[in-house]
């Protein structure tokens, strides 16, 4: 089947549009999350939000809404807790993961029969992305993007240094709440496509690749966006053509790109070292 033909299939269109929107959002949030050493937030929130999915399945109501509300609560709690307090961020994220996951499994055990939907939440499924999911995602994306434009400088400055940000009268708390709540909601929005287990790939890997190849903030943003969107697009197409699960295909595509960029970065730094040592002789 040709690429253009694939792109005319409605469920593929929904999957690709939602995948690219997610890659853009999570790629941007990742730039500010990774330097804070909080990459674990992706696993903690995605796994912990399974409780919301379980509540939705149990009540027979659209599960992603419950998961998003729960994720927003997780994000707000993370923003509330200062990393200097006795309860650290990674400790709190671990609590969300274990607590949310355990409660979800217990709740799901009360739902009788086979639960095929659950597997698409765990591992992602391109067929699972419906129009309602896409509309929710487009709404969340638009709101986040508008706030993101306003919060751009505060996010940059608070990532560099909290105290310096306060001195230049940046509202540090607002910026922190936006980052953590926004990231948490975006992660849950990606659960249907990529699954709770693999959605973290879109938050973490594009930034790791961009950090290896970029030399400025501008280039890091551009590279992470290109890598995230192209890998997601490629991963979704490959998963359809080869008939393999979408979440793992997108995640693996990103990991392969990361390996290639690491190799390139290593060769480049060795060449620079050689050139400098030749100059000294």
């Amino acid at each position, binding site marked *: 089947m040709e690429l253009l033909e694939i792109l005319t299939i409605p469920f593929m269109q929904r999957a690709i549009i939602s995948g690219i929107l997610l890659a853009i959002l999570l790629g941007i949030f990742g730039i500010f999350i990774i330097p804070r050493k909080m990459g674990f937030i992706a696993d903690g929130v995605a796994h912990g939000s399974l409780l919301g999915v379980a509540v939705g399945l149990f009540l027979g109501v659209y599960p992603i809404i419950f998961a998003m509300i729960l994720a927003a609560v997780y994000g707000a709690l993370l923003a509330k807790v200062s990393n200097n307090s006795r309860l650290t961020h990674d400790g709190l994220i671990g609590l969300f993961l274990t607590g949310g996951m355990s409660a979800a499994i217990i709740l799901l055990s009360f739902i009788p029969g086979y639960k095929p939907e659950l597997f698409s939440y765990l591992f992602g499924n391109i067929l699972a992305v419906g129009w309602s999911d896409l509309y929710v995602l487009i709404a969340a994306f638009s709101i986040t993007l508008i706030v993101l434009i306003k919060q751009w400088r505060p996010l940059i400055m608070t990532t*560099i*240094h909290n105290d310096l940000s*306060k*001195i230049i009268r940046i509202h540090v708390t607002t910026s922190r709440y936006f980052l953590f709540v926004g990231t948490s909601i975006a992660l849950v929005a990606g659960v249907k496509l990529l699954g709770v287990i693999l959605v973290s790939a879109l938050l973490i890997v594009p930034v790791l690749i961009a950090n290896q190849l970029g030399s400025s903030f501008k280039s890091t943003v551009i590279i992470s966006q290109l890598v995230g969107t192209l890998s997601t697009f490629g991963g979704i197409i490959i998963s359809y053509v080869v008939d393999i699960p979408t979440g793992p295909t997108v995640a693996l595509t990103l990991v392969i790109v990361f390996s290639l960029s690491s190799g390139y970065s290593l060769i480049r730094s060795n060449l620079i070292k050689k050139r400098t040592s030749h100059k000294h002789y």
Partner: protein
Amino acid sequence: MVSIVEHYDSKNTDIIECNDCSICLQSKPILENSSLTIPRNALTFIVGENGSGKTTLIKGILGLIPIENGTMTINSLSKSKLVMGYVPQNLEFPKQFQMTVQEYFKYSAQVPTHLIEGVARKANFPETHLKAPITELSGGQIQKLLLAAELFRKPDILFLDEPLANVDHQGEKHILDVILGIKTEGVTIVIITHDWQMVSAYADHVICLNKNFICNTGLNCICKNSLSKVNIKNIQKVTPDPGFSHEGYCYIENI
């Protein structure tokens, strides 16, 4: 917790007044019932042994750490809010955040691109490093970068935490010239230092912090002789008063 009161008072010669303020870090009291003033348009030095609370005091004044009790007043010359500048000591940028020096100037102090070179030059920051990542700068270069960005913001009061600690001799002289230059332009400067020569040479006002309150007679006071000889207009000590104060001298030991 105490909120810092800022009001318009052009007649007051002190830009900051702190009365009976206490600051705790993780429930541990660092400063207790401390009182001090910072005079306007003057060069004030904060001295004291390691761990006596110099940086904590500055952070309290800047509103970065909550003040538990007492009153903190900022006397502004105009009705607009006072611009405060701060250059911290030993700042490290996160290694996983790629940003060039030019981008730092753009985002931190909102310096227009065409002015960046001139702004960097003012703090003796090497122009050859403008495209370098901020994570690859040395300690001294970071201090010059932060100082340059703060100078562009045109602060009314500038706090410098050991500004010469990582700077070479030539850089030291340049930064001192810059500091003395902006003082003549009406900026109030507060510097934390251990450099007694600098205090003796340039201070208008000294605030001494004491951790142990051992020196009850002044006999063990290392800085007593060096400070008493120079023309320092005013020496304050930060309380709690040990009850054996000798007015005009500080109480620092083991510097």
